[in-house]
């Protein structure tokens, strides 16, 4: 009963799965390209009040304008960059804290391990959003950085728990016992045996958490605890557009579609990755 043999895939489904993998790659690349593009070019200056109030989509403004007359498409494109920044930042922080804690727990004495495991069990039950809310509340002013930090901390519990479990399984292997008896330091064991072994599974989990972070950031922004203006985060765009949902519905729909497409893309990518690293499948 392990993750690995659970994901056995009938051969006839492989073609379908490569379709989802490619769909994931395409969606994510699209967001990455758009995000990078906004560093050098956007259709309009994001803060320029170039159009009228809540203009409908037109050739000049493909997705219309917001209440201040700013181009929505520009904002949504910048939103891609912000979502990627938040996702990568949060996962990086979550990974740094989580992997360290998880490895410590895996190597630690029985008592410390039990204590850490119990604490992680509690933390993991709290949704990312709630932990992030508290971290944001604790920081003096809300910035994009504080949102990223908050989400990273929230994710770290999930990473730590997974790392601990994966690492403990590796540590039971015979060759680790051999390495230990031959006097390899535990740091050596970590870098030469544990990390390479658990990395594939971890990286899939990171991809999934990226999606989780993107959704949580949108929810934080919706609750007014996210990145402050003028950061055009999709969550904030949705929150601002909520009041005009009947007069200019596109503003409340377009950022949502952008968010959903990125998260689906990353999840499909993660599923595809998992299949491709699945050793039982490779073995066949």
């Amino acid at each position, binding site marked *: 009963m392990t993750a690995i043999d659970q994901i056995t895939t*009938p051969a006839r489904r492989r073609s379908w799965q490569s379709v989802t993998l490619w769909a994931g790659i395409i969606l994510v690349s699209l967001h990455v390209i758009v995000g990078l593009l906004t560093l050098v070019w956007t259709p309009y200056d994001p803060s320029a009040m170039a159009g009228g109030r809540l203009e409908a989509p037109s050739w000049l403004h493909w997705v219309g304008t917001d209440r201040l007359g700013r181009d929505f498409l520009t904002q949504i494109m910048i939103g891609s960059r912000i979502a990627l920044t938040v996702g990568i930042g949060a996962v990086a922080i979550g990974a740094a804290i989580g992997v360290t804690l998880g490895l410590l727990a895996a190597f630690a004495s029985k008592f410390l391990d039990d204590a850490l495991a119990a604490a992680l069990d*509690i933390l993991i*039950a709290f949704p990312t959003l709630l932990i992030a809310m508290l971290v944001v509340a604790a920081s003096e002013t809300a910035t994009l950085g504080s949102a990223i930090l908050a989400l990273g901390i929230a994710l770290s519990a999930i990473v730590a728990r997974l790392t601990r479990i994966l690492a403990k399984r590796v540590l039971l292997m015979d060759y680790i016992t051999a390495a230990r008896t031959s006097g390899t330091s535990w740091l050596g064991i970590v870098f030469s045996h544990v990390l390479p072994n658990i990395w594939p599974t971890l990286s899939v989990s990171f991809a999934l958490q990226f999606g989780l972070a993107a959704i949580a950031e949108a929810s934080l922004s*919706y609750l007014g605890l996210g990145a402050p203006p003028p950061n055009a985060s999709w969550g904030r765009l949705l929150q601002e557009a909520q009041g005009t949902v009947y007069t200019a519905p596109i503003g409340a729909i377009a950022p949502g579609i952008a*968010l959903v497409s990125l998260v689906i893309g990353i999840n499909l990518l993660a599923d595809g990755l998992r299949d491709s690293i699945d050793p039982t499948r490779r073995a066949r």
Partner: protein
Amino acid sequence: MSGPYQWARIVSGPQNRKTRPILAYTLRRLVILLFSLLVAAVVLFILLRLLPGDPANALLGVGATEAQIASARAQVGSDQPLYVQFISFISNLARFDLGTSFVSRASVVEEIGNRLSVTLPLTILGFVAALIIAVPLGIIAAVRSTKWYGAAISVISQLGIAIPVFWVGILLVSLFAINLRLLPSGGFPLKGWANLGEASTAMILPVLTISLVMSASMLRYVRAATLEVLGSDYLRTARALGSSFPEALIRHGLRNGAVPVISILGIELASTFLGAVVIERVFSLPGLGSMLLLAIQQRDYPNVQGVLFISTLLVLLIGFAADLTQRIVDPRLRDRGAGTP
């Protein structure tokens, strides 16, 4: 099949596979519960001290004098050394004395009780509705994974886990409340559940929102668990011994498949409960989540602390119940010893 929680849980498998009478297990699990509660209390204490500003501010009027500030600090105890604050904090928690709100001056315990009368039904109904959607669809998606509708269910569930819950709420309100005028857009009746009709209709859209989003991730767990059962030896054995496929699936499959799903469901239930904060905001419901959000904004420490403590307690109790249920349901854990997988 995705979602980080489930990934971790499935990898770990049901914990503690040594055979033990159920009572001993319960006691051991109870000790862990109390220990966890203590850890949570410590974390809570530290967290609240990290929030900026002195809680005494909430008691002060405009242009307070030094003497007034000092007396307000004495009143809330923020002038005491940290360890004294910690001891009184723990002893108050142990007595369920959560104090009174700085802002409303109302008893925190009473207020939480009122709020739970909204949040608990919301959580439980949303959870049950999600189960009703997810279990049959998840099994179909697994058993008929090669058929178009099996694949369609999987694809739609991908969509479901990628949508932020508040967005679903906003869209459902514009459809069912504003355009079709079928259901209220938000709010909760003054008399609460004493006004059963209005209270129930007020719950429909929030429950629907929760269940739609939750069922997507649940469905994926159910599907994964079913797929595993389908590939398992005992199902093959049962069929070889003459059971029909549906019979074998229901007799043996469901029970075995339920085991990993139960612990995940425990976590999902806890997440729903805590995630209700966003739903309550969308639908202007007077639940625990909106109380917490307001308390955080107002720096109303007794309320923040009270809500977090009670939530933690409930989350831990859910985990406790899930583990016990799992223990009882799992034939390997209950009837015989099971080796490492």
